[in-house]
């Protein structure tokens, strides 16, 4: 069916594998996200802190550079301790917060527009399942948040391992998988609720407000419960408490939140499952009114 040949013709060319079809949705989602210059600028800003830390790590092992900028190596060695605390609290905690902002900015536009403009029948009338659709959208957020959390984290880890030597690596090997696990849990626990809310609210600004509102109200309720009943149970609904407890559990450090590891894992699993169920309820070709 060439442009000059105005007749209908079928297509009998090659087809892409069915299993990776959901990646088409991810590719288009990523392209749409980066179509906004404001988002692109913010995303670039997200790499500022890893670059600062990279610089600090470099200086720590480079006496010549320290002399050039008139800095005492002892001060720097004291100030920049590259250990579990460095990766967990100095690097990852900040990056996860930025990841949260990325999810908040990008998440709603991924599904709300499709549902508002009734695009679901168009997707689902093709060889694509609801799981493929959700997976395709999750991959967008997964790639964006991964790119500013565990991916640069692993890069910093590899650089530090090469500078610090075998001894440092043997002592701190747990940091690498811990960063990946904590980031992955964070991605799921932020992305699924954001997508679910966007699917129900269908309007981007409102979806963001509702998501923030839920986090803030959950935190307020949890803090009130903790104060009033002097119990860790309140932390179950405080997203950042759960994240801290999970992070401490995975990194093997002492957490700031008095909450059992199992409770934190349960809260994260419950949040992700509930959000997935709500999202699935909405991602349909048509609503059936019984």
């Amino acid at each position, binding site marked *: *069916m*060439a*442009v000059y040949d*105005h*007749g*209908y*013709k*079928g*297509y*009998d*060319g*090659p*087809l*892409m594998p*069915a299993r990776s*079809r959901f990646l*088409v*949705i991810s590719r*288009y989602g990523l392209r*749409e996200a980066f179509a906004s210059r404001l988002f692109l600028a913010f995303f670039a800003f997200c790499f500022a802190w890893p670059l600062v830390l990279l610089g600090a790590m470099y200086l720590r092992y480079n006496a010549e550079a320290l002399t050039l900028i008139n800095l005492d190596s002892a001060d720097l060695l004291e100030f920049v301790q590259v250990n579990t605390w460095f990766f967990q609290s100095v690097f990852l905690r900040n990056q996860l917060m930025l990841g949260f902002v990325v999810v908040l900015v990008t998440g709603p*536009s991924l599904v709300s*527009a*499709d549902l*508002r*403009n*009734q*695009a679901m*029948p*168009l*997707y*689902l*009338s*093709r*060889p*694509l*399942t609801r799981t493929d659709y959700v997976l395709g959208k999750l991959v967008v957020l997964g790639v964006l948040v991964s790119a500013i959390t565990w991916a640069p984290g692993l890069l910093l880890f590899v650089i530090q391992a090469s500078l610090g030597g075998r001894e440092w690596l043997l002592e701190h090997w747990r940091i690498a998988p811990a960063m990946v696990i904590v980031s992955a849990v964070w991605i799921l626990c932020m992305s699924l609720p954001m997508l679910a809310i966007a699917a129900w609210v269908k309007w981007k600004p409102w979806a963001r407000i509702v998501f923030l509102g839920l986090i803030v109200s959950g935190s307020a309720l949890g803090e009130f419960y903790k104060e009033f009943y002097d119990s860790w149970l309140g932390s179950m609904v405080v997203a950042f408490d759960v994240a801290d407890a999970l992070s401490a559990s995975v990194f093997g450090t002492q957490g700031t939140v008095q909450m059992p590891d199992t409770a934190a894992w349960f809260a994260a699993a419950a949040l992700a499952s509930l959000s997935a169920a709500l999202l699935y309820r909405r991602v*349909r*070709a*048509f609503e*059936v*009114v*019984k």
Partner: protein
Amino acid sequence: MGEAAPVIDLDGLGVRFGRHQVLDDLRGAFSGRAIGLLGPNGAGKTTLLNTLLGFYRPTAGTARLFGMDITAQGRELRRRVGYMPERDAFIAGISGVRFVRLMAEVSGLPPEAALERAHEVFFYVGLGEARYRNVETYSLGMKQLLKLAQAIAHGPSLLFLDEPTNGLDPPARLRMLRLIREIRDSGKARIVVSSHLLRDVEECCEEVLVLNRGRIATYCNLAEERRANRRFLELDLAAEREGAGSSFRAAIEGLGCEVAVVNRRRIKAVLPPGVEVRHIYASAIEQDVTIRRLDHKRTSLEDIFLQAMEGDDGRL
């Protein structure tokens, strides 16, 4: 895909939403190049389309498209299907060509082929000049054509069109019907058109399935009906002499026609195979009868539809 298998094979198909039985025991096999689904609002046309597309799960029976079960082989079937929904459906914030390309890629086309096809279908449906415009800026008629473009971008072998002429002005409607006929005549895709507009179905379809209250009210093969109608004549006569009418009637009966007398000046006749209208004229000349009017029977789809819609008590 079995070539000999019917396009749609309904096998006791039923769909129930809660207590509401929307489709009930639908049976039949349909093989036409273009199949029309007719029925009043709420008859179950869209539900049938949605069930065939796998959006709803049958609560009873099953259906097959090209011999493939809609439940067991849904994913494979949807690769071969194009769907134009009734309501506005698009992806906001992107250009028309990008939207159609995305839809083609989701159907499995490689990115380069999808882009090429997207451009081609835009020109095919007549939106070539508007292909870089944001889809939200399209008029209603353009959105209808856009929906058709995304439905055919991946070259489906079965096309579901739900109310394709909805909201179109007369020229746009004619354009849409012409496109549907062209696709039908290309032989590359079978078409199922759901509409409540009898005229549209009559102009595009060869087979018609009339639904009423979730059941099949009637099935009509329009192509055969048209052929049969060509054999059914209604004649207005003016006899030049006494008894000429009777002798003319006897003469055409002699040709093998079945004849019924409506009144002294009007008769109805069914032509047997091998007898053409010119033989009737020849008999009229022989019997000194003037044929003032000769009409073929014109059972319109409207007649068929109205007959099918008649309730048990004989009222509509």
